[in-house]
Structure formats: structure tokens, C-alpha cells
């Protein structure tokens, strides 16, 4: 063993309790492969979920009347709430999508995304229970060609729910925010 090898650990050893800093993805900004994989996974989830919500909102904003008809067909809301819901929901999707895309308020936006997905799944389950198997979910298009099989919609929303809940957990479970973060 050389003198250099003997001295090396004393010089290079890091502080054992050092907290890694967090970036806008909510993933600890450490070093090496682990940090890289987590960072990319969260970024992919953020962008993917944001794209889903932004894409879903565009046609609803363009055709709020058709979206109101679709909401009416679920027979969940009273008639007086259908129009306000049809007008506001797409803009909540836009706001959540933009927050996720830009990395702003990630726990709040991912929690809202989770909540909306749960709401969609409850609505589809309700429609299934009522016997509306050939359902126009109003998910991505308001045109009449946009019908889908309800069980397939539930599976798709289940995957989205898992992604939203995972992102919320990853961004919320870290209790300490770095100064200046918009978390």
C-alpha cells in the first residue's frame, strides 16, 4: 500500500449525513446512475401526464357545448351544474398540465391530476353500473366518433392514475424544500 492510497479516504470521504438537494422534479439531485434514472423517470412522467391533460383539454375548450352533452349522458350531475362543469374542467386540466410541464407546484398539480383521474374513473364506473357499455367518455374528443369501450377506458385511466399517484408520492414525500423552490 502506498502512502497516497493510505491518505485518499481521509481526503475524499463525504459528510455522512449530507442531504441531497432537490430539483424541480422532486428527485434528489445526487450523483451517478441512481440520480439519473430517477430524474429521467420523473421527468418522463411529468411530461407524459402533462401532455395527456393538455391534449384532453383542447377539444373540450373548442366545443364546450358538445362536452356538456357528454357530461349530461353520464347522468351524474344535475342539469344546472353541467354547463359550469363543462366550462371549467378543461381549464383545470390546462392549468394542471402547464404546472406539470413547467415543474411548478408539483405536489399540488400532481395531486389535482390524481383527483381528476379518480373522478373520471368513478364516472366511467358509474356509467358501467348503469349499463352504458358503449360510452362516449369525453376524454380526448367531443366528436361522436370518439366512443370507446368502458372497460378499456377504465384500464387506460388506471395506468394514468398510477402515474399521477407515483408522481405525487415522489414529489410530496420529501419534507424539505430547497430555498427558492416553487414546490
Amino acid at each position, binding site marked *: 500500500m502506498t502512502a497516497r492510497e493510505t491518505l485518499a479516504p481521509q481526503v475524499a470521504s463525504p459528510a455522512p449525513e449530507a442531504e441531497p438537494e432537490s430539483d424541480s422534479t422532486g428527485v434528489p439531485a445526487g450523483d451517478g446512475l441512481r440520480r439519473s434514472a430517477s430524474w429521467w423517470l420523473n421527468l418522463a412522467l411529468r411530461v407524459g401526464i402533462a401532455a395527456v391533460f393538455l391534449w384532453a383539454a383542447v377539444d373540450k375548450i373548442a366545443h*364546450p357545448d358538445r362536452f*356538456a*352533452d357528454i357530461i349530461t349522458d353520464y347522468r351524474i350531475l344535475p*342539469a*344546472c351544474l353541467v354547463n359550469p362543469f363543462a366550462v371549467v374542467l378543461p381549464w383545470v386540466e390546462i*392549468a394542471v398540465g402547464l404546472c406539470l410541464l413547467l415543474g411548478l407546484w408539483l405536489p*399540488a398539480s400532481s395531486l389535482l391530476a390524481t383527483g381528476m383521474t379518480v373522478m373520471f374513473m368513478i364516472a366511467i364506473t358509474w356509467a358501467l353500473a348503469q349499463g352504458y357499455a358503449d360510452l362516449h367518455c369525453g376524454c380526448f374528443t367531443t*366528436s361522436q*366518433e370518439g366512443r370507446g369501450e368502458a372497460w378499456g377506458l377504465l384500464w387506460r385511466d388506471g395506468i394514468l392514475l398510477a402515474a399521477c399517484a407515483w408522481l405525487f408520492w415522489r414529489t410530496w414525500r420529501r419534507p424539505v424544500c430547497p430555498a427558492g423552490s416553487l414546490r
Partner: protein
Amino acid sequence: MMARLREASGEGLLGLAARCAVIVAVACVVAVGVNAARLGGLPLLPGEVPCPGVSRVLWGRFDHAEPKEARRLWQEASAAFVDARPHEEYIFNHIPGAVNLPYRKFSSSFAENESLLAPTGVVVIYGDGKPCGDHLRVAKLLAERGFTKIKLLDGGYPAWEAGGYPVQGGHARGETGVAP
């Protein structure tokens, strides 16, 4: 570490709820503003328009026809009749000469029957009698395609049949009519 977690969670829950509320509030403000600015914005207060999904402007463009008036138009052959019910119900019974444009298959049905309907002529649309039923949705879709003289048959097909007016189909209870 646990103390930091408890402290952060206590503050964070309130902060999380507040941030969620801010996101939703901003979305509400933008949504209401955009809806108010657009010509075909939906009425948000109850009672402005009796059916959801119809703007004040569009609702004002639709006329209504009592069965008696519809019968007159039918006799004079001065209007085209559109049946907005599902095809099975249309086959079962319909107003003679009516074109079937089911809401759920509107695009394909309209493409098949487009030549039978003149956008500038009077079109009487009827459904299954529900005031906010499929006939209203078909009326919206026809209005989008340039039809300007749309009349909604009050009471729909049941009111027409109850009036003893001509019907056509496999199970006609009244007079078997001939298309005007």
C-alpha cells in the same frame, strides 16, 4: 429527522391545499372569462336556457312547432322532417317522409342523406319527446352545418302520434301515411 418530517407535513398539508385551491381558482377565472368572451359561450347560471349544452345565441335561433303546425307544414310539404331517434325506433315508427339522423351516428347518416336536406329550407326536427333530448343535439349539429330555419317539434314523436297524425313504419298504430 422525524421532527422535521412532522413539522414539514403539518405546514405542507395546508400549503398543498392552498396551492390546489389557487390552481383551481385561476382555472375558474380564465374559464369564466373565455366563456363570457366567446359568442357561443354557455350560460352558467341556472334558468337562462332550459337545456344544458346550448348557448343563448343558438337557443334564440331555434323555433318551436306545435304538432298542429308541424302537421300543416307536413301537408304543405314546405318543410323537411328529421327524426333524431335511434334507427331502431325510426324503423318501428316515424313521420312519413322523415329523414333519420340519429345523434349517435350523425356523421354517417348526414353524409348519406345530405342531398335530401336543403340548408336554406325549413327543417322540423323531432325526437322521443324529452325536451332536452337528441333532437336538440341534432339541431345543434345541423346549425353548425349552415341550416338556419330549424324548428323543434314540441313533444316529439309521441305528441305527433298522440295527435292522430299520419305515421309510417312496421308498427304504425295510426294511419299509414305516404311521404308528402
